């Protein structure tokens, strides 16, 4: 077997769901389906259906959670799967792990697939840790013999030695996760599916788990499919990436470009126009009416109209102002950034840069170019204030929100995640003197 050999092939997979309740209406659809089948025709309901956009009200009862998904995975590859909530990741994983069948299409595999979808499934609270290792291992497809031979390693990896003969219901949630991950880690499937399990557990355990996954793929030559929202983990683990959006595969290729592609998907936070904001103060001789974010990151591709920005990007914040007095005049604008606790973090203003901004007769556009957007990941709230001749003409507090995403800011793949490390990223050097 060569390294290039394809171990998993997903061919034209689609999955349809019916929305709403199961009721008396369902039985008529079932009958229609049945009659179509005995006449040798296609399922009539597979012809209809809409793309799965959760926020808009659709006209059809049927939606496509996945549509025409095609990709291949090679042996030993770590494939990252990313996408927004509702993009179809979980559905895809369910189909891959044989929990449910696709509506159309097929998945072909040359190896045993095991999934680590949600940790602790199949644990029985009344049984002891050791009994649960056996049960969980068997559910995942191991034989009793395999488990017995690895029992010691599993217990050691989990770090729950003291509790191993205690019923699992007495475990802390972290211990359950450790135990379950330990079982799965020593499972030897050809393809391992991991769905955001690393989100739980403390930092030390996460590190251990990521290390184990790297071992599985690099030394074991096994394939891992990894779903996460944690871009840093994706970047450090994966060798290939696919991006899903509304049930469609929109990207399949290198990790770095894929992440940028993912970030450029318009977020579903509806953008309210600043013009319609109620909570504002000032003389209202001019008003902020609209805003727009765009940014460049790493590959210099301009990504527009997003509220999600990776740390360290070159950000353009465009503001549109409406002049109510028709008088052209010089203005100054200050933008204040607050973190989720309401603490001011930084501000951007032409008061300090002395750059000239002026109002045109009726409408004008102002651009703030933020060179090094050095905020740590998290949500930030923006307040805009405008002055003309020392008078405040308009101020809107917390008028929009930006989601800052983790990135490879330091170029090392490391990123400060703890709150106590602050909200601002600073580049620094360290050396012996």
């Amino acid at each position: 077997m060569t390294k290039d050999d394809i171990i998993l092939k997903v061919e034209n997979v689609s999955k349809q769901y019916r929305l709403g309740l199961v009721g008396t209406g369902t039985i008529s659809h079932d009958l229609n389906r049945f009659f179509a089948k005995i006449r040798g025709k296609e399922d009539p309901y597979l012809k209809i259906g809409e793309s799965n956009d959760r926020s808009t009200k659709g006209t059809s009862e049927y939606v496509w959670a996945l549509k025409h998904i095609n990709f291949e995975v090679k042996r030993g590859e770590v494939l990252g799967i990313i996408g927004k909530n509702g993009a179809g990741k979980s559905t895809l994983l369910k189909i891959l792990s044989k929990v449910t069948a696709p509506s159309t299409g097929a998945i072909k595999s040359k190896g045993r697939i095991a999934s680590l979808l949600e940790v602790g499934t199949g644990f029985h609270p009344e049984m002891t840790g050791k009994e649960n290792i056996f049960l969980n291992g068997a559910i995942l497809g191991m034989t009793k013999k395999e488990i017995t031979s690895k029992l010691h390693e599993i217990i050691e990896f989990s770090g729950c030695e003291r509790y191993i003969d205690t019923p699992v219901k007495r475990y802390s949630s972290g211990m359950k996760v450790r135990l379950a991950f330990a079982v799965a880690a020593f499972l030897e499937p050809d393809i391992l599916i991991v769905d955001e399990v690393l989100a739980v557990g403390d930092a030390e355990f996460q590190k251990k788990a990521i290390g184990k996954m790297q071992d599985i793929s690099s030394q074991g030559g096994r394939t891992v499919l990894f779903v996460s929202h944690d871009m840093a983990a994706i970047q450090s683990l994966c060798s290939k990436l696919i991006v899903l959006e509304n049930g469609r595969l929109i990207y399949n290729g290198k990790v770095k470009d894929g992440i940028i592609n993912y970030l450029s998907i318009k977020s579903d936070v509806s953008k309210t126009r600043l013009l319609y904001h109620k909570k504002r103060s000032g003389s209202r001789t001019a008003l902020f009416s609209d805003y727009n974010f765009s940014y460049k990151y790493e590959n210099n591709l301009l990504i527009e109209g997003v509220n999600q920005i990776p740390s360290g990007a070159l950000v353009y914040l465009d503001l549109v102002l409406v002049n109510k007095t028709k008088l052209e005049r010089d203005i100054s604008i200050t933008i204040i950034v607050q973190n989720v606790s309401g603490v001011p973090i930084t501000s951007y203003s032409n008061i300090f840069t002395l750059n000239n901004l002026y109002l045109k007769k009726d409408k004008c556009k102002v651009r703030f170019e933020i060179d090094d957007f050095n905020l740590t990941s998290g949500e930030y709230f923006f307040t805009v204030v405008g002055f003309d001749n020392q008078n405040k003409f308009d101020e809107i507090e917390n008028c929009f929100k930006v989601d800052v995403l983790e990135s490879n800011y330091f170029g090392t793949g490391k990123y400060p995640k703890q709150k106590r490390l602050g909200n601002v990223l600073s580049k620094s050097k360290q050396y012996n003197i």
Partner: protein
Amino acid sequence: MKKEKWLFEISSETKLIDLNLKEVWQYRDLLMLFVKRDLITLYKQTILGPLWYLVQPLFTSVIFTLVFNNVAGIQTGGIPPFLFNLAGITTWNYFKECLTATSDTFKKNEQIFGKVYFPRIIMPMSIVVSNLLKFGIQLLILIAFYIYYAFYLGAVIRPNKYLFLFPILVVCMGILGLGLGMIISSMVTKYRDLTFLVSFGIQLLMYISLVVIPLSLFQEKGVEWLVMYNPMGYIIEMARYLLLNEGNVSQFGILYTIISSIVALLLGILIFNKTEKTFIDTI
């Protein structure tokens, strides 16, 4: 790249009979672990523990004897009524437990079925096996009373010479319960109506399964048709025939029982297989 060899394929199509016995065999350890789980967790944190296995049939037999034999005056043909009832109830219980427990396989295990794949049929099979062990324990108490009646009270009872066929009867019952249970559990995934039917239907079924009223009485009153088409009736009657040498067994009954058990099992597997692929979307 023309002819590639795939280990398995997941597609939208379902074959009519698709029971992968090899796969079931691979998961045999899981089956045994499920059985173990069922047995050790059922009576955890109870004082009487496994004694509960015995309490239920004993109490039921006592009440039935009081009500049906002492008050209603049903004759049991020379057999002590308590023993007659205990034999019937013990046998009936095995079928009942198999049917009710397998009939909510999908609903009860939705959590775990929704997360990982293993041959789904392992679950109902493990239920039938773990109930078999419970049945064994209950059979012991029946034997204990049997000996007590025969040697201390001097009742004239003896088993039939075909007693060695009893295991076949138990297998028949297990198969019937498993088959029907799988059919019901598959249907329940989409339409919950059946759950209501099962819970009271099984009660009613008991009365026409000759558990308390012997076949001879049905024949006497000319309502034989009530029990004619019920394979469980034949099974209970046969069980008592083998254990207590009391009852009528016909060739038709034997054949009918075996055939209907096998048909139920095959139909169960067929429907179960069809359902297991996508039930998680509809449950």
